[in-house]
């Protein structure tokens, strides 16, 4: 896949940065406003997809990227399971227990472990969607050689 013109590349870089920050905002405010790990993760993946589409897959070293994104998602979802089992270490025999203090509802730092789940799920979703997209692109490149 060829890249697009220089104007498109520059504009998409700017936009991708904005979209990325918006995705992080959505993830962090998942327990306060609509959205959360799934929406935010998909938005972040969208920012990367935009960059890849604008710059063209031939210009980037996608092999390295795909192993990176696959590792990231494995690590993130492993963290989710570890977080779920964490309460076992606190002496409660319960999975998915919300063991952190709840805080004041409506504050950014509240709701116990929910923001942490949101963050890891967000990373996992972004990694998974990016992996799927990159696998399709790499397959197209390699099989048309």
């Amino acid at each position, binding site marked *: 896949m060829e890249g697009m013109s220089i104007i498109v590349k520059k504009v998409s870089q700017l936009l991708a940065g904005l979209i990325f920050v918006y995705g992080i905002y959505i993830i962090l405010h998942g327990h*306060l*406003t*609509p959205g959360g790990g*799934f929406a935010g993760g998909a938005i972040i993946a969208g920012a990367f997809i935009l960059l890849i589409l604008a710059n063209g897959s031939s210009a980037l070293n996608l092999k390295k990227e795909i192993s990176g994104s696959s590792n990231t998602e494995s690590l993130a979802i492993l963290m989710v399971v570890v977080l779920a089992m964490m309460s076992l270490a606190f002496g409660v025999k319960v999975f998915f227990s919300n063991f952190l203090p709840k805080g004041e*509802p*409506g504050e950014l730092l509240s709701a116990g472990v929910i923001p942490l789940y949101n963050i890891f799920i967000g990373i996992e*979703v972004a990694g998974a*969607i990016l992996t*799927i997209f990159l*696998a*399709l692109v790499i*397959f*197209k490149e390699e*099989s048309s050689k």
Partner: protein
Amino acid sequence: MSVYILSFVLFLVGLYGVITRRNLIKIVISLSIMEFSIFMILVLVGYIDNGLAPIVDPASGGQIYVDPLPQAMVLTAIVIGLATTSMLMAIAIRLYRKYKTFDIRELKNLRG
């Protein structure tokens, strides 16, 4: 009830597509349409008249909120739909590379 019936019509349109279409991509589209109709039914089930979106304002009390559980279910189902669609597309593109067509009748290795 008309909304539920129309959603079910959408479901039947998807089912019709799965049964009659002979194109791999069209079959994937039909499955997505069936999915959409089920999301619609689930969200309709959870709707309550004059209910607010399920985001609580800690300052005010005594409000009615719509049922959050079907929304959580649909959220899960949307992600499942994304997963199945991407798996199907991966297989479709591989089959296209092998047969140079999306026609399901050309896939002759399978019998019965």
